[in-house]
C-alpha cells in the first residue's frame, strides 16, 4: 500500500498522476477464510480492518453484493455525534467519537472529519428539560455537551428564525461541540484500503445467498460467486439484516424502512453547524461542496426499495423553510433513500447469535454512520474473542426477552417511531 503523503502527491503530480496504485485489489474469492464478513458497508469494512489491526486476523473476506460503500454508508447525511442519554449508547458512541478523532491518521486517508458542532433545537419547556437531562447525562459520562439559550443559538446559526412568535419557537438547543460530519464515501474507501493493506480480500459483486450451518455451527456461505467456507461469519448488512439472518433461520426484532435524504444545489457557505429539530423532522448541514444536505423522518413502512416518496420530502423541506426562511429559493438537486434497519427499541445489535460462529451487527436505524468505527472495533472483538466487549455487551438480541431494552425515545416496540 502506497502511503499518501505530501511527497507521494508531489511525485505523482510530476508524472501526471499516472502512477497511483489501486486503493484496493479486486481479488477472486478463495475457497475458505477464517472469517467472512457479509456486507461491504462501513461497518463490515471497519470490522475487517480491526480484525487485522487489533486481533491479527487477516485471512478474512468481506463479501459485498454490489459496490463497496453502496449501502447506507454511501447515502447517509453524515452526521457524527455521541449525544446519547442511556448508558450503553453513551459509552459506545463516545468510543466511536474518539476513534473518529484519530481516524484520518489511522487510515492514512483524509475522511474529512469536520467537528463543526451538532445542535438539537428545543421548542418547548419540556423539550428543554429533556435535552438538559440528556446533556447532563452526557457530561456525567464524560462527553462534551452545552446548552445554548435562544440568543446563543441565534448567534451560532444566524440564519435560523429564532423569533419568539414562531409557530414552534426555538427555546434553546443542546450543542455537542465535538459532533459534526465526515465524508461518508471516504470512510468506506479508507477502511477498504486499510483492510486491503492488511491482506484482507474485499470481494464486490458477490451476494451471499445462503448461510451453511452444521450441528448448530456456521460453516460458510453460499454466494453468487460460489460457496465459501469459513470458521466464523459476521453479518453487517444493515437494511438487509432481516433476510440475511433468515438464511440462518433467524428472525430478528428489526423492520426495514426507507429513510430519505436530499441535497440542494450548492451555494456559498451559509451554515457552519449541523442543526436538528425537535418540532417536525429535519436535520441539516452544509457540505464542503456547498450543498445543503438534509434528512428527516422515515417513510414509516417496511420497504426495500431505497426510493421513497414525495410527501416526506415535502415535510422535510417545509420544516427547513420554516426555520431557515432564506432556504426558500434554493433548489433541491437530488433526493434519494436508503433501507434502514429499524430495531424495536431504536438501539443496535452487536452480538453473538444462537448459531455458533455467526455474529450479528445491525439494527442501526437511522444513526449507524456515526457508529462505524466503534461498531467495527467491537464487532471485531466479539468475533475474534467469541464474546462481546464491555462496550457492546448490552446490544444483544435477548434484551427484549429480558426486559432490558435500550429505548432512548421511549416509543416501545414500534420501529417506525424510533
Amino acid at each position: 500500500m502506497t502511503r499518501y503523503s505530501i511527497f507521494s502527491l508531489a511525485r505523482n503530480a510530476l508524472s501526471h498522476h499516472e502512477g497511483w496504485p489501486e486503493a484496493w485489489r479486486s481479488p477472486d474469492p478463495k475457497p475458505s477464510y477464517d472469517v467472512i464478513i457479509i456486507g461491504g458497508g462501513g461497518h463490515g469494512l471497519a470490522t475487517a480492518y480491526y480484525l487485522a489491526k487489533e486481533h491479527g486476523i487477516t485471512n478474512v473476506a468481506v463479501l459485498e453484493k454490489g459496490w463497496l460503500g453502496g449501502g447506507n454508508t454511501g447515502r447517509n447525511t453524515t452526521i457524527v455525534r455521541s449525544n446519547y442519554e442511556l448508558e450503553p449508547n453513551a459509552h459506545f458512541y463516545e468510543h466511536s467519537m474518539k476513534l473518529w478523532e484519530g481516524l484520518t491518521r489511522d487510515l492514512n486517508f483524509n475522511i474529512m472529519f469536520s467537528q463543526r458542532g451538532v445542535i438539537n433545537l428545543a421548542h418547548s419547556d419540556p423539550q428543554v428539560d429533556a435535552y438538559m437531562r440528556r446533556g447532563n447525562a452526557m457530561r456525567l459520562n464524560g462527553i462534551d455537551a452545552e446548552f445554548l439559550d435562544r440568543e446563543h443559538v441565534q448567534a451560532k446559526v444566524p440564519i435560523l428564525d429564532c423569533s419568539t412568535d414562531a409557530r414552534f419557537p426555538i427555546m434553546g438547543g443542546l450543542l455537542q461541540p465535538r459532533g459534526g460530519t465526515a465524508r461518508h464515501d471516504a470512510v468506506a474507501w479508507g477502511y477498504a484500503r486499510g483492510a486491503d493493506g492488511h491482506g484482507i480480500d474485499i470481494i464486490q459483486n458477490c451476494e451471499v445467498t445462503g448461510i451453511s450451518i452444521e450441528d448448530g455451527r456456521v460453516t460458510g456461505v453460499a454466494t453468487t460467486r460460489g460457496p465459501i467456507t469459513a470458521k466464523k461469519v459476521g453479518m453487517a448488512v444493515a437494511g438487509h439484516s432481516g433476510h440475511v439472518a433468515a438464511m440462518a433461520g433467524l428472525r430478528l426484532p428489526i423492520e426495514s424502512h426507507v429513510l430519505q435524504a436530499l441535497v440542494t444545489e450548492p451555494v456559498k457557505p451559509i451554515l457552519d453547524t449541523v442543526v436538528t429539530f425537535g418540532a417536525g423532522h429535519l436535520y441539516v448541514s452544509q457540505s464542503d461542496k456547498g450543498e445543503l444536505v438534509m434528512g428527516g423522518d422515515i417513510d414509516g413502512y417496511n420497504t426495500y426499495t431505497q426510493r421513497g416518496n414525495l410527501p416526506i420530502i415535502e415535510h422535510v423541506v417545509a420544516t427547513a423553510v420554516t426555520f431557515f426562511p432564506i432556504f426558500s429559493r434554493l433548489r433541491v438537486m437530488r433526493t434519494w433513500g436508503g433501507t434502514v434497519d429499524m430495531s424495536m427499541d431504536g438501539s443496535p445489535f452487536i452480538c453473538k447469535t444462537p448459531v455458533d460462529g455467526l455474529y450479528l451487527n445491525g439494527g442501526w436505524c437511522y444513526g449507524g454512520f456515526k457508529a462505524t468505527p466503534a461498531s467495527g472495533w467491537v464487532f471485531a472483538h466479539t468475533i475474534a474473542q467469541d464474546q462481546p466487549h464491555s462496550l457492546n455487551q448490552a446490544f444483544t438480541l435477548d434484551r427484549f426477552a429480558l426486559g432490558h431494552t435500550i429505548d432512548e425515545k421511549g416509543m416501545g416496540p414500534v420501529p417506525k417511531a424510533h
Partner: protein
Amino acid sequence: MNGQPFRNAEGGIIDHDRSLGFTFNGRRHQGFAGDTLASALLASGVRRVARSFKYHRPRGIFAAGEEEPSALVQLRIGARTEPNVRATRVELFDGLVANSQNCWPSVDFDLGAGAAWVSRLMPPGFYYKTFKWPGLLWPAYEHVLRKLAGMGVAPRQADPDRYEHRFAHCDVLIVGGGPAGLSAAIAAGRAGARIIVADDGPEFGGSLAAEAGPIDGAPAREWAAVAVAELTAMPYVTLVRRASVFGYYDHNGLAISEHVADHLAEPLPFQPRQRLWMVRARQVVLATGATERSFVFADNDRPGIMLASAARTYANRFAVRAGRRCVVFTNNDSAYGAAADLAAAGIEVAAVIDARPGDPGPAAAKALGTGIERLAGHAVVATRGGGALTAVEVAPLNESGDSLGGSLRRFDCDLLCVSGGWNPAVQLHAQAQGRPVYDDTLAAFVPGPSVQAERSAGSAKGTFTLAGCLADGMEAGAEAARQAGFEAAETPPVPACEDEGEAAPMRALWSVPPPPGLRRKRFVDLQTDVTQADVELASREGYKSVEHLKRYTTLGMGTDQGRTGNVPGLAVLARSLGADIPQVGTTTFRPPYVPVTMATLAGREIGHHFQPVRRSAMHGWHETAGAAFVPAGLWLRPQFYARPGEGLWDAIYRETVAVRTSVGLCDVSTLGKIDIQGADSAEFLNRVYINAWSKLGIGRCRYGVMLREDGITLDDGTTSRLARNHYLMTTTTANAGAVMGHLEYFLQVVWPELDVHIISVTEEWAAIALAGPDSRKVLERLTDDIDVSNEALPFMGVREGTFAGVPGRLFRISFSGELAYEINVPADYGQHLWEAMLEAGKEFDITPYGTEALGILRTEKGHVVGGELNGRTTADDLGFGRMASSAKEFIGKRSLNRPGLTDENRKQLVGLVPADGKTAIPRGAQIVTDPDQALPNPMIGEVTSACYSPNLETPIGLGIVAAGRARMGETLYALSPMRGKRVAVTVTNPVFIDPEGERLRA
C-alpha cells in the same frame, strides 16, 4: 439594433418590436420579448458568462435548454435573488438583473482561477490523500475550501413570493409538448380521455420552434398551433406550460413544478410564483425529447463551443447568430441541418468536421449544397482562445478513434458547434423503475421495458425523424387512452412531413485523442469540471464501479445531474476498463429531473402555517387576556396570564397560590376525551386498563393506567361511568391520538366481538377545571340543578346538569389535589361558561391559571406527566403497582414478568427536596450518590420535574431513582453540569401536599 450586434433583423418567434432592457454584470443590454437571458446575451455579444465550479475556468453558453451545464448565473437581486439559474431557462423581462457567480472580483478577471494553477496537484481524490498533517489543520483548510466551492449565493432575506400545491387526477398524463407529445395528446384527447399535457417551455411545440421542416405543407409551428387550439377546445384537456415533470413516483404518481410567474419581474398580486402539482395518472406518455451531446477533446469548454442544436435554436427561434464564423463538429447527420440553418442565418460556416469517413445521409445535402467544406474522418482535437474561442485544430482520426493521423489544420472561428449524437431523455422512465438499455446504433440509452403504466414516444424513445415522432406520439396517445379504459381510441392519421431520407449511421465517438504533446484539460462533465484524465485516474485507483467513479470524481453530481456529461463519462470509463458501455451501466436516476425550489416543495405549509394550530373554545379569551402560549402537540395552551407589570414567575406563583388558597380556573379542553358506549364497555375497559372496572358505579369515575403491549406505561387518566353502558375516558393531551388509534385497533382487529363503540369527543366539549377551597362556592352560583354538597357529590363523582344555563357534565376530580371540579359543556358554550365562572368567582378572587401553575400544582401532589411517563417506566415504577389487577387479563400484562421489569433496582418515582431546604433543584438534572466521583459518574436516577413550590415555600422535585422507594430520607445529589449546578437532595414521598387527600375530599 445597435446594442445587439448578433441579432438578425428578422425571423424567430421573438417580438422584434418589443425591446426589453436588462443588466448583466452591471452592464445594460437590450433584448426582445420572447428572448431567454441566454439568447439576449448572445445577441449582445456577451460570451463569457460564468466561471466553472472547481477550476474557475471561463465558460459561456453551451446549450439552449434545461441541459445547460455552464451558463449558471445569479438571477435578480435582493430578496428575490436566486443562485445557479441556467441563463438558457430564464425568460427575459424588462429590468432583469443577473450576475456571474463563483468569481471574484469579476467574471473576466477571477482570482479564483488561481486554483487552475495548482490544479495539477489536485486530481480527484486529492483531499483524501492530503490535509492529514498536521491533523489539526484540516479545519483551517476546510474553512478555505468551503469558500472556494459553492457557486452562487443564497438570498439574505425571506422570500416575498407565495407557492402553491395542487393535486390532480387524469387518465393520461403527457410529459412534453413537442411533436410527439402533441400528437399523443390529440390521439388521447380525441378518444375522450381526461388528459394533462405538461411542457416546460413557455409555449407548446418543443423543438418545432427551432428546427423542423413543414408538416402538412405548413411550417411546423403552425401545425403545433393548430394542435394546441384543438386541445384547448376539448373540455377534458388541461395544458400546463412552464411545467417540468420532475418526479415519477409509485403507482403513477408524478410531480410537476410549474413556473407560474418566473417570467415576470414579480408575480401579480395573489399569484403564486410556482406551483407543485401532484398528479395521479392512469397512464403516462413520456415525450420528453432528446438531448444532444458533445465530444471530449482538448479545451472543449471554451466560451463559443456550443451544441449544434443550440446554435440552431438561437438562429431559428431567437434570430441570434451565436458567432460570426463557425466550425461544425459532428458524428451524425443532424448537425448538417444545423449547419444549413446557421448559414442561412448569416453565420459563416467554415467547415463541417465529420468524424465519419464515409458520406453523410441526404439530410446533409442542403448544407453541403451551399458549398460548405466537409472534412470526413476528421475530428476537432484542440481549441484556441483566451476568454473565448478563436480557433480550432482539426486532424484526421484513425479507424478506431484512438489516434490521430496527418497534420493539424487550423480553422479560425468564434463558434464551434458540436454534435456527438443524441441522448433520449430516459430519466423519468428510469425513475419509474424502467431500466434504460443501450442502443448500439444510436450509441445511447433508450427506454427499456416499462414497469409502471408508461410508454415513451418520439425522440425520448430514440425516434429521431419528425415523421417518426409524430407517428410515435399518435400511437402512444391512442394506446394510453385504450389502456386507461377508452377502448375505442383510434390512432389518428399521421400528418405529412418531408421525406428526410435514410440517415447515414452515426459513428460512436466519445473522446478525441489530443495532439501529441498537448496536455490540456479534456472535459467530460462541464459543470463539475471532471476531465477524461480524472475518469481514467479513478478507474486506475480502483474506483471502477460507475457509482464509485461518480462519487470519487463528482461526475454527474452537479445541478444538471450530468445531463450532457454522464454518457461520455461512462464511455471513457468503459474504455479504460476494456468493457462495453452496457457493462458499465448507468448511475441511478433520481428525482428531481430538474432542480425544484424548496419553496415549491414546501408550499404554503411554512412559517406560522407550518402546522395547523388547534385552539380551544376559550382561546380567544386567553388571547385577549394576554396569556403567553405554549405548544402542546398542535394545541396552543395558555402558559400563564401576566398582569401588567408582573414578571413571569410572579404571575405563575400568584396563580399557583390562588388555587391553594381561594379558587382558580384552568382550560383543560385539550385532554383527550373518548366516548365509550355499548354493552361490553366495562369489559373493554377491563382489558385496556390495568385496574378493574366492573364495579364502578354509575355517576362515579376512576383513575386508570394503561400499558403498551411490552408492559410499559402508555397513558393515564380518569374514566367516568355516565350511564349503564356509557363511559367517558380522558387521556393526556400528548397521547390522545395514539390512545384513540390503539383502542380502535383492539376493537376493530383484535376484539371485534365486543359490543363497544368509541368516538373521540375531545372537540365537542370545552373543559374547565375549577380548583381551590372556594371552588364549591363558585359552583353553587353556577348551577342550580345539581346538589354539589360533599355528601351528594363526593370525590370522584360525576353529575349531569346545567351550568350558567348550559347543559353539561360535572366531574369531581382533582389534578391539583385541592377540592376541585371539572366542568364540560359543548364547546360552542365554552367561552360563555368561562366568563360566567369568572363572574361567579369574582368575590373569591377567582384566578385563571395556565400550564405552569398547573405543573407546579400537580408536582406538589406527585402526579405524573411526560417526564415520568417517558416511555420507559412501568406502572410499578410510578407507584401504581398495586392498582394492577391480578384477577384479569389486560394489555401488556403478559410482558410484566420479564426480569428487567421486575428488577428491584428499577428506577422508581420519588419526591425530592433540597437538603438545605432552599436551593432550587435543577430541571433536567441527573442523580448520583457521590458528586465528586471521577467521570463517568454513575447515574442512579434523574430529576423528572422540578419547581419552586410557592405553597410550601420550598423547592421540590420528582425523580425516578434506582430502588427509590427504599431510599426515603437518603441524601443524594442532583447534578446539572450543563448549568453548573449541584444540589444535595433528600428522597421523600412524592406527594408533598396533603398526602392523606383531605383537601380534595373536603
